[in-house]
């Protein structure tokens, strides 16, 4: 039996009919057509599906639809405001911290979550906080630099 759940997605109140045991990733990508969030492994190992829920970075593939009722979710589509890139996005562009771009939405969302908790992280803290997000093209060093740049620019303001 499907039931309607509601939550906030990128500032908009949305409702979807779910059985409850769908993954949040399916809800976002397929039911709500927000395809910026990616499937990489389906087991929480790679972080390509990272989104922010109530200010915490989480793996959308590991959450059930029923767990997000009433929550506030931010995906890559909700980061830029009025056409202006978010400082984290801007820093990723400036540092060219991406190649194929497939892990990039998850990287950016995880970095955003990291900067909420720790506005000016050291290099070591960035590595620790980003460790479980995988990039096969090998852009890690540039991502670290981008996050440092973004942190400095934001100074704690998200």
């Amino acid at each position, binding site marked *: 039996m499907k039931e309607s759940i509601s939550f906030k997605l990128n500032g908009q109140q949305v409702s979807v009919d779910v059985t409850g*045991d769908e993954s949040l990733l399916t809800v976002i990508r397929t039911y709500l057509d927000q395809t910026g*969030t990616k499937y990489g492994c*389906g087991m929480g190992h790679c972080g390509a599906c990272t989104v922010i829920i109530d200010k915490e970075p989480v793996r959308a593939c590991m959450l059930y639809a029923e767990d997000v009722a009433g929550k506030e979710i931010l995906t890559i589509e909700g980061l830029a405001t009025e056409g202006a890139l978010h400082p984290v996005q801007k820093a990723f562009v400036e540092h*060219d911290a*991406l190649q194929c771009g*497939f892990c990039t*939405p998850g990287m950016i969302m995880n970095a955003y979550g990291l900067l909420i908790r720790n506005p000016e992280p050291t290099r070591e803290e960035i590595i620790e906080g980003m460790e479980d997000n995988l990039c*096969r093209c*090998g852009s890690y060093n540039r991502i670290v630099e981008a996050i440092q740049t973004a942190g400095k620019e934001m100074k704690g303001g998200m």
Partner: protein
Amino acid sequence: MKSDKITELYFSDVDHPVTYDRRKFLKKLGSGIIIIFSLGELSLLQGCGPVDEEDAVDFNAFLRVKEDGRVDCYTGKIEMGQGVITSLAQVLAEELEVPINMVDMIMGDTDLCPYDAGTWGSLTTRFTDPPLRAAAAEAREILIDLAAKELGVSDKNLEASQGVVFVKDDKSKSVTYAALTKGKKIVQSLSKKPPIKKSKDFDIVGKPVISIDAEDKVTGTAQYSGDIVLPGMVHAKIVRPPAYGSKKLQVDSSGLSAFEGAEIVEEGDLVAVVHPDPEIANKAAQKVKIEWEEPEAKADNETIFQYFVDNITESEVFEEGGSLDAGKEASEIMVEVEYHDGYKAHASVETHTATCFFEGDKLTMWASSQTPFGTREELAKTFDMPLEKVHMKQIFLGGGFGGKIYNRQAVEAAKIAKLSGKPVQLAWSRREEFMYDMFRPAAVVKNVAGVDAEGKLKLWEFDIYCAGTRGTKLFYDIPNNRTRIFNKDGIHPFGTGAWRAPGNNTTTFARESHIDAVAHAAGIDALEFRLNNMKDENMAATLKLAAETFEWDREKEEGHGYGIALGADAGTSVAMIAEVHVDKNTGKVQPIKVVCAQDMGQVVNPHGATVQTEGGITMGLGYALYEEIEFNWGQVKTRNFDGYEFARFSSTPEIECVFIDKMDSDPQGGGEPAIVCIGGAIANAVFDACGARVNRMPVTPERILSALQQG
């Protein structure tokens, strides 16, 4: 081109571009100034003759200056993170004298772009750049001719810049490309050798340019094949066997009745469930029970090496010189080692994906493919359709590395679409990816080398099993040598194929480990030994640059080691030096620093080349230290990233890339070469750090500890 032909080319180093098909093309084009050019002739500046619009012509890329002054560049190449969407636009903008943001790249669309054999082999910059430059220069000349008529001055007094032609001594007199192009249709093939800029005149080439697709990628708007949503589309889930190569015996689909709207489709060994909701398609597919007949298991990830040696007896000589007997006689010290390398997955974060629909007798497909034209051919053949009825659309790829040359998923998706009569999206799960990836083959290299009392190499025997000869032509000066390649069809338990500079990763690891072992046995410094035995001057210069940059003589910290590896790939010479720390108690390796020097001829986009090199090194650390597929014949036991470690943030060292300055020579490959050296550089650095000589990749903590115990 057939996939086996591609594989053959990929495993050898491509010295000549491949030849291309003929196609009628120009009728489709609108107005503007159109320059067509062939990538098939490297010396294409000789041109391909006049063009009759009604005739088929040899060409495979073109550019078009449109009536609004924007420039479309059409190429069958695809963008998978290697950055050619930027570097091609860069050379075009340079020669045509337009800002780079006026260039639109139309890539890999089989209806819009001319034929291309595929994006692999680090070929794009080597073979697409020169004709693209020439074509852009020719378009510029045509525009200047038109401006001469328009402005009533001689073309000698005109100059083009930023999409405008102006009079040299009176810049108030000018006309834009847009105005010149309006209402015209001029089609020209490269017919003469237009003047091409020298490096000192470059405004854009040679300067760092940020990827032009970066903004789409940071906002989530860049579309990959799984992001395509079609009206009425269903998601497909294929029911897979436990082992690769299994045959279907019996299907029990009675469990499907519990899932409303789930449909089963079946053709041969392909059994799939489709449903508009991917969650339901997945759950329903799990309820379909199939009895499979598995192939007989012949080897696993430990026994596969001996299995190769026992079962592959036929060989071909790739290179030989002098006499092996004379080499043995001249040698004071001989070292003999057998090197092993396990199967590696491409492990792109995007799995193989395809979205497609049939409309009447036409198939439209968005597939994560490095070979859109090859995939089109495969699809046309599968369904017995004419080529032009299959349309592959432009799409970004979430990584490729050679793995997306092969497009089983596109054929599967199209079959399911045909059988179900609905638009279909098929995205392989990570587990499927770890079964149907075309793995980099496991390989064995048997290496014997001899050195005389003066530290000169006299003997080199190099027997390669399953890794190909790419990059194995000797750049060391060894008078008595023989390189043989041992291969056999059907020797692997599952699909194998090209993996970012394929077997060159394996053979470079073997050769450079062996050179180090011989140098050590002779008591000579690894850098000095290489320079003393070098035949290739470019390689020697590249090694010297690496050594200077790394500061080879600098003091080592406790537990640290330095390792050198040299490699040749795709026309580029690579010298790499790695610094690692090894914990002798745990065997854990921490990469500290990697210096990579390259002679890649002209560096078109130094920033892009640096990013590619950093990426190659980082990716390569995975195969050097962590990656190995675990299997018992067709049963692939590696199922997800938790069983397939590759480089992460914490394992990525400081990376420094330096290039030999050769701005007036031809550009060479950049996507692959650097990666071939990382295995050897790491293995040699590990030996230097702790004395453990590990002759099998990946160089794992267990193997290091075991080598230390054996002394």
